[in-house]
């Protein structure tokens, strides 16, 4: 038997008081797809960053293909045949695919030779693994799934035998996920070794050979995927049994809270992004919006939240017509009880350079509770953050830590805590569980349902079809900026939804709202 592709032994890493990796050992066999799972902040990204040379471990050793290797920088890692695909793609948007792949291997003053060499390699690789990517496409025009393929190709062109993918599916559509998994299997069959970090147990079951589980900085076990089940994995991760399904009683909808009529939005170029959307959300119900990302959901949420100006149509909140793009800016809307969890927490939901406590008052900094008159009372802000961190189990519960230093899931919890704890009448919530671990998903789902049961209106946008179907009382499907259908979750299935999401009208009966 060949030596394992990766053998990490006794890896230890501390960040100040946080013990991110505690004597972690992990073995990955050659030619396999190996899953790495664990709660938010368990130390997965840290472990992978050590393997890729971003961080130096405090102690511990790494052997690649049986050979002890000193990996201090990403260059060392690439040299050892390790490639990494980041969740946030590291591509130059205005470059073509070839130019991006060529970065770092331009081959001299003139780029023509490097370019043709890269082009040849790209062609060979695309052919070998069935990845069709147009080498001359400009990166900013590619879809997310294609971007990811470019990242993978970039690693392969550099000679990677071992590929690390950190939460690769978080931004992909279901179809793109399937394509990716086919590709990963194929790479593994060709002898490449793949490590995939994810929070989605379904994907672990679908694509991996073995899976390692981390909890609070320690490795708690490695199991053969075929000998385990999602429930067992969840228990290993969290240390208790986790509800993998959402439990909720029937909804008891009351009066209309949000009334959207013929809402139309154009982007800066004048392209119609939202086309005459009409719907209502009542108090005490969760209305979900399903759809492939980029079909107008973001525009819908942002317009209702007062961030975008509509080109036409009306929005009423609690029976009052809003002055969209005028007096009803996000501040005024918050005063009317609208809260908003934005889809992209890094772009909008947080200020990464701020301490957590400061990010936790984004949009609420004018509330009287945070200080007298023009002043901000730092003690009050910190105390408020500590409270929120406790109620949402944010780890580490340190309000003075910089926002950027929290793991992805914990950042999301900070945003959710900020918006949900403020007792909204209408909650707009985009991608509530993106990058969040299953324990936290269970918790977040419970909080959303509790909000509904307390008579609040919830408008939920998620590209996770399972999530939309599990949480919503009614589901609207969007495609190409239009609402293409409405279903009750109990009256539909994935196939029906898939057709609606693709804009193909389906003959299933429309349910009365």
């Amino acid at each position, binding site marked *: 038997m060949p030596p394992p592709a990766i053998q990490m032994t006794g890896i230890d*890493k*501390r960040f*100040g008081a946080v013990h991110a990796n505690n004597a972690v050992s992990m073995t990955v066999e050659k030619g396999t797809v190996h899953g790495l799972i664990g709660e938010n902040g368990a130390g997965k990204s840290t472990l992978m*960053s050590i393997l890729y040379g*971003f*961080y*130096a471990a*405090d102690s511990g050793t790494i052997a690649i293909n049986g050979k002890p290797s000193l990996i201090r920088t990403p260059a060392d890692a690439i040299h050892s045949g390790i490639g990494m695909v980041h969740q946030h793609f590291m591509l130059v948007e205005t470059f073509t695919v070839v130019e991006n792949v060529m970065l770092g291997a331009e081959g001299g003053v003139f780029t023509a030779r490097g370019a043709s060499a890269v082009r040849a390699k790209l062609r060979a690789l695309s052919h070998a693994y069935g990845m069709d990517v147009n080498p001359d496409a400009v990166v900013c025009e590619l879809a997310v799934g294609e971007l990811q393929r470019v990242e993978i190709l970039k690693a392969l062109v550099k000679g990677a035998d071992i590929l690390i993918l950190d939460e690769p599916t978080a931004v992909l559509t279901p179809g793109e996920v399937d394509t990716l998994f086919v590709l990963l299997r194929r790479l593994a069959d060709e002898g490449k070794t793949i490590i995939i970090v994810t929070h989605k147990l379904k994907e672990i079951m679908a694509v991996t050979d073995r899976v390692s589980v981390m909890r609070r900085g320690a490795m708690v076990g490695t199991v053969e995927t075929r000998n385990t089940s999602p429930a067992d994995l969840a228990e290993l991760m969290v240390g208790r049994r986790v509800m993998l399904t959402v439990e909720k009683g029937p909804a008891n909808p009351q009066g209309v809270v949000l009334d959207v009529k013929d809402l139309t939005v154009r982007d800066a170029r004048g392209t119609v992004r939202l086309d005459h959307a009409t719907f209502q959300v009542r108090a005490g119900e969760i209305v979900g919006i399903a759809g492939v990302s980029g079909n107008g959901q973001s525009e819908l949420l942002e317009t209702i*939240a*007062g*961030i975008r100006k509509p080109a036409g149509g009306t929005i009423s909140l609690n029976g009052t017509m809003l002055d969209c793009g005028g007096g009803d*800016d*996000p*501040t*005024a*809307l*918050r005063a009317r009880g609208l809260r*908003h969890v*934005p889809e992209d927490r890094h*772009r*909008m*939901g*947080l*200020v*990464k*350079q*701020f301490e957590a406590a*400061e990010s936790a*008052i*984004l*949009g609420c*900094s*004018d509330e009287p509770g*945070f*200080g007298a008159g*023009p*002043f*901000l009372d*730092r003690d009050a802000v910190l105390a408020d953050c500590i409270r929120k961190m406790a109620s949402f189990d944010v780890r580490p519960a340190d309000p003075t830590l*910089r926002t*950027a*230093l929290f793991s992805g899931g914990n950042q999301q919890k900070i945003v959710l805590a900020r918006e949900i704890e403020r007792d909204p009448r209408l909650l707009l919530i985009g991608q509530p569980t993106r990058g969040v671990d299953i324990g936290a998903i269970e918790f977040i789902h419970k909080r959303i349902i509790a909000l509904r049961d307390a008579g609040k209106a919830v408008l939920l946008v998620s590209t996770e079809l399972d999530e939309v179907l599990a949480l919503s009382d009614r589901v609207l499907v969007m495609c190409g900026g239009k609402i293409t259908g409405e279903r009750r979750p109990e009256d539909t299935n994935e196939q029906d939804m898939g057709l609606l999401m693709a804009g193909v009208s389906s003959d299933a009966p429309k349910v009365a709202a």
Partner: protein
Amino acid sequence: MSAKTAPVWLTAGVVPLVNVAVAFLAAGLVVALIGENPVEALQIMLRGALGSQYGLGYTLYYTTSFIFTGLAVAVAFHAGHFNIGGEGQALMGGLGAALVALSLPFLPWPLLLPLCVLGAAAAGAAWVFIPAYLQAHRGSHIVITTIMFNFLAATLLVYLLVGPMKMAGSMAPETARFVPAATLPLMNQMAAWFALTITRTPLNLSFIFAILAAVFVWVLIWRTRLGYAIRTVGANPDAAVYAGISPRRITVIALLISGGLAGLMATNEILGVQGRLINEFTAGAGFVGIAVALMGRCHPFGIVLAAMLFGVLYQGGAELAFDKPKITREMIIVIQGFVILFAGALEMMFADRIAALYARLTGKVVAA
């Protein structure tokens, strides 16, 4: 991954000190190259700047101007903008102070003096309003517009000082003297109120204003809702929009505050020392403010320290040029240039290495 931290005392204390030391080393080399003794030169500089009441008075007098212009750059920087128009805004601050002083000479000093100070701040703020508005609403780059406004301010002042505002009968481009009620007392005069005698230097009450301004900026940026909004806009404008903070409004407000602080620099030179409006009185203080803000990491405390360093360089440099004919004024500018280079522009050059050393010594892994 830039998400790494080293302790504050390291990044804000040791790193700048090392940078300054390297700057002096480089400057020392140049001094040695022209055949002077660098150690002696450094001694002369330090003694000249700090070794006597006279030297210290001048040092703090220069420091005063640099604190104002450094704070001005810092406030704009927190909102994500690079206001390099401190020079022009300070000139206009002088004009504002002079207009008040010359047009209301009959007022008693408790009224006239505060009005003159306000006039300086208001004129500095007014001068940045058009660049600020264009940046906020038209996206015209503030760096370009404020440079242009520096030229405009300089020419406007020349025009006024050789024309409408020129003192009748004078050959120099300057206004008439202000009434005493419109001027700030010198530090030695104030000391005399308390029966203390100190050497007469240009150091005046505006030094206290500068320290108060630093405290004001600290409170503003880190302890007020407006400061929070300013930092949000500077760090992540999308998050600001989401939060209901208007980046346009905040941009204009932050730049007005910035311009006001730059305008206050005129209280030192015009209200404190000259007692009349003269041409080119800023003498580059607006630009030194950029280096001061960079070196002070846009923190008021750091800015006060950095301003003092530049005060020492200015005053000590003047003494050095006086003592050592071989070391000309231009040489002094070279030395100042080294400080700006190592402490401002190259501030990160040693930061990583120092952090790595620290990590080795403490067993923790950090990077600046």
